[in-house]
């Protein structure tokens, strides 16, 4: 299993590779001239500044014999914007970028039509949960399948038996989506104020819960069954847990997923490097072929030594 990590500054490339990253990915600040939007906020914290910077990043990464991919998994790929995007994608293809990460049908069709030689990876937000869906996207040219966060190892095992595509899995230590992120409209709706940071965590808030009443008369009749349901749903919200990331890491490692991806591109440089080193150490423990419990014990000790990472996860990872 190889480590892929995100970056947002050219200066981060060398230290990330030295820390153990085998492949890198980044987004680019999108504007009216390039229209290359990603799934993360369109800011310098998350994205590289320009096409020129990206070309420089490709050069540096290739000098170190590593690969680099660009995230273009969200945005307006209308025909007029595709016209703007085509020369940029061709330009990056000629600069030997290794891959594009997308879920967008128009982008995939464009890559096929323009015979782009860089590989296209299916983004985890494509919510592709079965082997037939992967076949559908393979017909559109994808070469790598990034597992949706909501896919379990047991489900992946069944998919893998039917499809031998190259695979990649996200390694989120704390914040993974409780909802299917590719099918979630919380982020798209006009209900929220996009400027407010809590917007990203809305699915982790605990709502006030009431029974559904189809008419006002129903509201006046006490319903014990509804009360019980509400109490159980409230408890569920209070104890709604994250996925156990060590469990998942162990399972996906043993299912021979090709790449482990660190969604850390918005983190400060030092945190990105720390996370790559930690992942590399965890992979070394996994190579020892221990039982799951033994792995988790060793891994937890390792993480405890670097406890700061877990606290900072909440702050940075969105």
């Amino acid at each position, binding site marked *: 299993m190889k480590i892929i990590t995100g970056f947002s500054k050219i200066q981060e490339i060398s230290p990330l590779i030295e820390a153990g990253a085998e492949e890198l990915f980044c987004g680019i600040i999108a504007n009216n001239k390039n229209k290359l939007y990603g799934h993360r906020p369109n800011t310098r914290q998350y994205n590289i500044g320009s096409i020129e910077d990206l070309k420089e990043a490709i050069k540096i990464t290739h000098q170190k014999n590593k690969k680099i991919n660009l995230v273009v998994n969200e945005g307006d790929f209308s025909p007029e914007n595709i016209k703007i995007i085509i020369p940029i994608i061709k330009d990056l293809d000629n600069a030997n970028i290794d891959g594009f990460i997308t879920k967008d049908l128009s982008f995939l069709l464009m890559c096929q039509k323009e015979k782009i030689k860089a590989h296209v990876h299916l983004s985890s937000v494509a919510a592709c949960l*079965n082997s037939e869906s992967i076949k559908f996207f393979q017909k559109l040219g994808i070469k790598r399948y990034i597992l949706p966060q909501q896919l379990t190892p047991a489900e992946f095992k069944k998919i893998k038996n039917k499809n031998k595509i190259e695979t990649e899995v996200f390694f989120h230590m704390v914040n993974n989506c409780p909802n299917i992120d590719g099918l*979630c*409209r919380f982020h798209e709706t006009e209900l*929220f104020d996009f400027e407010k940071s809590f917007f990203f965590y809305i699915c982790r*808030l605990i709502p006030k819960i009431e029974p559904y009443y189809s008419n006002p008369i129903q509201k006046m009749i006490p319903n014990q069954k509804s009360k019980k349901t509400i109490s159980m*749903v409230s408890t569920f919200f209070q*104890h*709604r847990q994250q996925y156990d990331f060590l469990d998942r890491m162990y399972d996906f490692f043993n299912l021979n997923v090709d790449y482990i991806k660190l969604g850390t591109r918005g983190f400060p440089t030092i945190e990105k490097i720390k996370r790559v080193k930690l992942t590399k150490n965890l992979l070394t423990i996994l190579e020892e072929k221990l039982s799951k419990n033994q792995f988790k014990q060793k891994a937890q000790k390792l993480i405890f030594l670097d406890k700061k990472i877990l606290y900072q996860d909440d702050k940075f990872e969105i």
Partner: protein
Amino acid sequence: MIQKKAYFLHDLSKIKQPTNFDSIYVGNEFCQFLLPTIEQLVRLEKKIPNTKVTFVTPYLTEDKLDKISILLNYLNNNNHFNEIAVNDFGVLNLIKDKYTNLTPIIGRVLVHNFFSLKKGLRVMNIDTINFFIKNYHVDRFETDFYSKNILSKKEQSQLIKPIKISFYYPFRYLTTTRRCILANSLNKNQQNEEIIKCNRPCIQKNNKLTFKYSVIKNKIYLNGNTEFIKCNHPRLKTDKMIDRIIYDNPFE
């Protein structure tokens, strides 16, 4: 253009000839455990033989591909079910490869892949739509998000075949999860795992809930694993692109 009305029938134990509706919808777009059985479909066919039925399929995990294949095979050999609303590209792929008698339509979950945001409006990408008309024989797209000028007149003229749009009301879906809020809550042993087997508590009326988040103005309606808000746009009934309105109220 006359708008036709469809009724989404959630409870297949209460099949009635629909009055004031031109067709019915059965199935589910959010939960693979709510797919009907072939026996239910046979009963439906017998009870309302002259009503057009659209079969709605949800997003699916690998485990349910076999079940959906059995259902698609049945539907493929049956003229009663004239359309399949797909909400998973895997199902679209199966229809194209194996069940060629069926007419796929793009369901309201999958349809978001065909929209782009343009100056705050949701618009459809003509080239992509043309690809799906040509290669997947899709001619209808369904949505629950109203946006003016989904396709301009100029864009409509660029389509290789006219498309039709259906609109769901009175609820629009916001989000959906594999860790079902209701089923997981009621199953103490399985609270933080994906549901593998489900006894479908969401079909009971006592389990229909509403949520109020401190940061959202609207009331949210919970049906099993999916959260909705109410939607009803004043332009809905006069929009010439929309030729079908689907009344879908899982809270009835």
